[in-house]
C-alpha cells in the first residue's frame, strides 16, 4: 500500500499546473517591491521641520541635515532637511520610524542606475525623483508601533472642589519618576530654543533631568533665566507650541520640567549649586526702575558682571506683576521669594516704596548713576469707557489684584460681571470666585469678552479651570452700557460681537445690534488690558527719545534708547509676559555692559 502511495505522490504536484503563477510575469520590466518594501526615501518637505531625529538615529551615518533652497529657517522649523547618502544607508528604516512629524517615508522603488556616484547622495523631496509620488512602501505603521511616546506624563493637580475656596497652589509638581519619564520623551532636537524669548538651553536642562543631575540643570537654567521658580509655574511656554513631539502627540512639558529642577534644589543649596558671587569690581553704578522680571533679571546679570546695582521699587515688596498681578494659586509667594532672595543675595540693593517721578526723579538717577534701566511694566488698567464706568462699584482688575496681594480687603459683591478675555481677566475672575466662595458659599460671576472662546487671549487651561470653579463665561459679547438704578449697579448691557479685528489686524470690533443681552451684577470689573505710565520721563528726556508712529517707545537691539544712558525693557517694550521681561533684562544687562565699556551706540546697535 505504501509503495503505491510512493509512486502516486509525485503526481499530486500536477495540481499546481492549474494554479496562477506566484512569480512576476515580466521580470525584466515589471518587478515592483512589495507594498511595505523599504526602498528609496521620500520626504514631505512642507511637513518636515528639520528636527534631525532621523540623523540622530541613523546607525550608519547616512543622513546629514543640510540647508536647502526655498526652505526658510523660522520658529518651529530649522530650515534644514535630511540628505541621504546611499553609499552608507542600510535601509533599516529607523529614520522613518523615529520621524517626529511623519514626513519621512520610503517608497517601494529599489532600482536606480546612474553612472555618477555622487548622484546617490540626495535630499528627498527637494531633488526630484521618479518615486516621489509612489504610494507604496514603508510608512510609519500606526498606531501599534511607535518609537516616540506620544502622551505626556500628566501633572497632578488639586481638584476643583478642593481649590475653589482656597489660594493653595493648584499644580502639585512632578515626582522624580514622573519627571524622568517626561524628560525621556524629549528627542533633544533643540527646535524649541529659538522660540523661547530667553533662548534657554532647554534640551540641556531636560537632559539633566534625565540624567538626574539636577544641580547642573539648575546652573543651565540660570545662564539665561534667573527666575526659574516663577517660569516653571507661569511661563507662557511658547517653546511647547513648537516642540517637535507636538506634531503627532503632546509636546514635552518643558515648563513642568523646569519647575521640577527648580523645586528640587532647596534654597540653602542655591549658592552651592550656582557658585556665584558679585565681585563689585567695577566702579560703575546702574539704577534700575522696577523690581519686576526685567529689573530683577538685569540686576542679576549686571551683578555677576561686577556692577553696583540699585533697584527703585514703588511697592513694598519686589516682584512686580509676578507678586501683585498673578494670584497665589498659580504662583505662591514662597516660590517667587526663592528666586528674588537669591538675586538680592548677590549684593543687589533695593529701595522699596520709592516711586520714580514722585520720591526721586529720573534726572537725579541720571546724575548719580552711570546708566538707568526702566522696567516698569504695564500697571495702569484700561477702561472700556462705556457709560457707567465712572460708578464707584466699577473697578480695575489690576488694582484689585494688587490690593489683594498686599493683604488688603477688596470690594466683593454677591454678583459680579467681569469684562475681559485675557489672563488678567481669568486671574481676577478666579480670585473673586474664591473670595465669593469663602464669604457667601457660592459663586456668581459672569466673565464676558469681545473675543469668542477660540480666539480669547487667555490660556486654554485658565479658561477650563475657571469653568471648573463654577464661573460663567460668556465670550463673544461687546459691553455697551452699565445699567445703574438708584445709584446701584444692576448689570451690564452687551451686544453680540461678530469680529474683533479688521482685515489689517487692527482693533475694530463689529457688532450685531439685533443680538442683545443683559448680564446681571452688582459690581463690574474691567480687565481689558493695561497701559504704561511713563509720566516720570521728564520733558527733556522724552524729547530725546524715539517713538514709533503708534506712540511706542523705541529702543535698539540691546534695549538702549536714543538717550544712550537710558535702557528700557519688559512689558513697556515687548510682551507682555514674564519671559520676555527676563529675556529683555538679560539682553539689556549685556547692552549696559557694552555701553559702560564704551562699545555701544544707539545707532550702531540698531539694525545690525
Amino acid at each position, binding site marked *: 500500500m505504501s509503495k503505491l502511495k510512493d509512486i502516486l505522490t509525485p503526481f499530486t504536484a500536477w495540481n499546481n499546473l492549474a494554479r496562477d503563477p506566484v512569480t512576476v510575469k515580466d521580470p525584466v520590466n515589471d518587478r515592483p517591491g512589495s507594498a511595505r518594501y523599504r526602498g528609496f526615501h521620500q520626504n514631505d518637505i512642507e511637513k518636515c521641520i528639520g528636527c534631525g531625529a532621523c540623523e540622530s538615529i541613523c546607525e550608519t551615518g547616512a543622513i*546629514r541635515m*543640510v540647508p536647502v533652497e526655498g526652505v526658510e*529657517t523660522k*520658529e518651529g522649523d530649522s530650515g534644514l532637511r535630511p540628505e541621504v547618502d546611499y553609499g552608507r544607508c542600510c535601509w533599516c528604516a529607523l529614520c522613518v520610524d523615529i520621524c517626529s512629524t511623519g514626513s519621512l517615508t520610503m517608497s517601494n522603488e529599489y532600482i536606480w542606475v546612474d553612472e555618477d556616484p555622487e548622484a546617490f547622495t540626495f535630499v528627498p523631496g527637494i531633488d526630484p525623483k521618479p518615486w516621489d509620488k509612489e504610494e507604496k512602501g514603508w510608512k510609519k505603521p500606526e498606531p501599534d508601533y511607535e518609537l516616540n511616546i506620544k502622551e505626556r506624563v500628566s501633572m497632578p493637580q488639586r481638584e476643583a472642589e478642593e481649590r475653589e475656596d482656597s489660594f493653595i497652589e493648584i499644580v502639585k509638581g512632578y515626582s522624580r519618576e514622573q519627571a524622568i519619564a517626561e524628560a525621556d520623551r524629549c528627542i533633544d*532636537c533643540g527646535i524649541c*530654543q529659538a522660540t523661547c524669548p530667553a533662548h534657554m538651553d532647554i534640551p540641556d536642562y531636560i537632559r539633566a533631568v534625565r540624567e538626574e543631575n539636577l544641580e547642573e540643570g539648575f546652573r543651565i537654567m540660570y545662564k539665561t533665566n534667573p527666575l526659574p521658580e516663577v517660569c516653571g509655574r507661569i511661563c507662557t511656554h511658547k517653546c511647547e507650541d513648537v516642540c517637535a513631539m507636538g506634531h503627532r502627540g503632546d509636546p514635552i512639558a518643558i515648563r513642568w520640567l523646569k519647575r521640577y529642577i527648580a523645586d528640587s534644589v532647596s534654597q540653602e543649596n542655591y549658592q552651592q549649586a550656582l557658585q556665584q558671587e558679585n565681585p563689585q569690581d567695577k566702579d560703575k553704578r546702574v539704577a534700575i526702575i522696577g523690581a519686576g522680571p526685567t529689573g530683577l533679571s538685569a540686576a542679576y546679570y549686571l551683578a555677576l*558682571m561686577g556692577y553696583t546695582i540699585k533697584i527703585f521699587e514703588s511697592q513694598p515688596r519686589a516682584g512686580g506683576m509676578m507678586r501683585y498681578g498673578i494670584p497665589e494659586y498659580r504662583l505662591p509667594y514662597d516660590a517667587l521669594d526663592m528666586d528674588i532672595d537669591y538675586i538680592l543675595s548677590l549684593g543687589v540693593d533695593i529701595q522699596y516704596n520709592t516711586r520714580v517721578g514722585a520720591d526721586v526723579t529720573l534726572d537725579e538717577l541720571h546724575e548719580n548713576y552711570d546708566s538707568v534701566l526702566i522696567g516698569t511694566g504695564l500697571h495702569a488698567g484700561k477702561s472700556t469707557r462705556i457709560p457707567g464706568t465712572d460708578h464707584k462699584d466699577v473697578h480695575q482688575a489690576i488694582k484689585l489684584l494688587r490690593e489683594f496681594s498686599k493683604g488688603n480687603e477688596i470690594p466683593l459683591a454677591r454678583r459680579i460681571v467681569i469684562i475681559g478675555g485675557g489672563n488678567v481677566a481669568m486671574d481676577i475672575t478666579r480670585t473673586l470666585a474664591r473670595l465669593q466662595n469663602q464669604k457667601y458659599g457660592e459663586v456668581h460671576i459672569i466673565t464676558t469678552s469681545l473675543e469668542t472662546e477660540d480666539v480669547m487671549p487667555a490660556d486654554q487651561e485658565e479658561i477650563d479651570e475657571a469653568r471648573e470653579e463654577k464661573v460663567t463665561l460668556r465670550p463673544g459679547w461687546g459691553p455697551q452700557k452699565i445699567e445703574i438704578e438708584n445709584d446701584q449697579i444692576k448689570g451690564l448691557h452687551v451686544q453680540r460681537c461678530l469680529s474683533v479685528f479688521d482685515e489689517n489686524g487692527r482693533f475694530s470690533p463689529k457688532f450685531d445690534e439685533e443680538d442683545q443681552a443683559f448680564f446681571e451684577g452688582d459690581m463690574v470689573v474691567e480687565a481689558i488690558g493695561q497701559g504704561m505710565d511713563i509720566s516720570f520721563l521728564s520733558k527733556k528726556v522724552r524729547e530725546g527719545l524715539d517713538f514709533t508712529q503708534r506712540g511706542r517707545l523705541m529702543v535698539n537691539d540691546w534695549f538702549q534708547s536714543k538717550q544712550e544712558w537710558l535702557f528700557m525693557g519688559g512689558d513697556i517694550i515687548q510682551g507682555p509676559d514674564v519671559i520676555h521681561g527676563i529675556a529683555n533684562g538679560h539682553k539689556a544687562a549685556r547692552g549696559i555692559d557694552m555701553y559702560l565699556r564704551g562699545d555701544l551706540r544707539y545707532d550702531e546697535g540698531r539694525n545690525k
Partner: protein
Amino acid sequence: MQDIVDKIRSRYDVSEVTEQRENLTFVTVEKDQVVPLLMQMRDQEGFSHFVLLTAVDWIEEGVFQLTYILNHPGKKVDLGIRAHINREHASMESAHHLWQQVATYQRELKEMFGIDFPGSPRVDEEFFLEGWDHTPPMRREFDTKKFSEQTYFPRPGSKSYDPREYMKQKLYCDDYEEEQ
C-alpha cells in the same frame, strides 16, 4: 497547543508562556533544560522541523535571550523555546546533534553575539563577517554609528548642521562678547 504546554509544564521549570497567536506559542525554561526539551519535542511530540535559532541582547538585565523555533508539520503549529544565558562568558549547550543545520545558526550567533557553543562543528570559523576583529556587532555595547564613522570616512566636503546651532546663527545670534 495547550496540551503541549501543559506537558512541558509538568516536566520543566517554565517561567513564562506567551501565546503569540493561535499557531505560535513561546515557553521560557531554564538554560540547561533546553536541549532535553528540544529532543522531547522532536521525538515524542512531532515537532520535527527546526525553523531557526536566534538571540536578543538584554544588556540592562545582563542576559542574552535565546529562542529556538520548532515546527509541527502535521499540526502546522510553531513552538518557540526560550532561555536566558549570562552575557558574561556567554556559552550554551550545542543542539547540533538534533538537527544538523543548528550548527550553522550557532556559528552565526558565535560571530554576531559572541555566544559560544562548545563542540558545535566549525563554530569558530568566520561565517559572514570577514576579518572581523571588533566586538561582535549584534552585542548592544557595539557602537554601530561610531564604527561606521571610523570605518567609512565621510565624503570630502560633506557637512551636517545641528538644527539648534543653525537656528541660533540664523535667528538670534548676537555679537556680545564678555570682557576678558
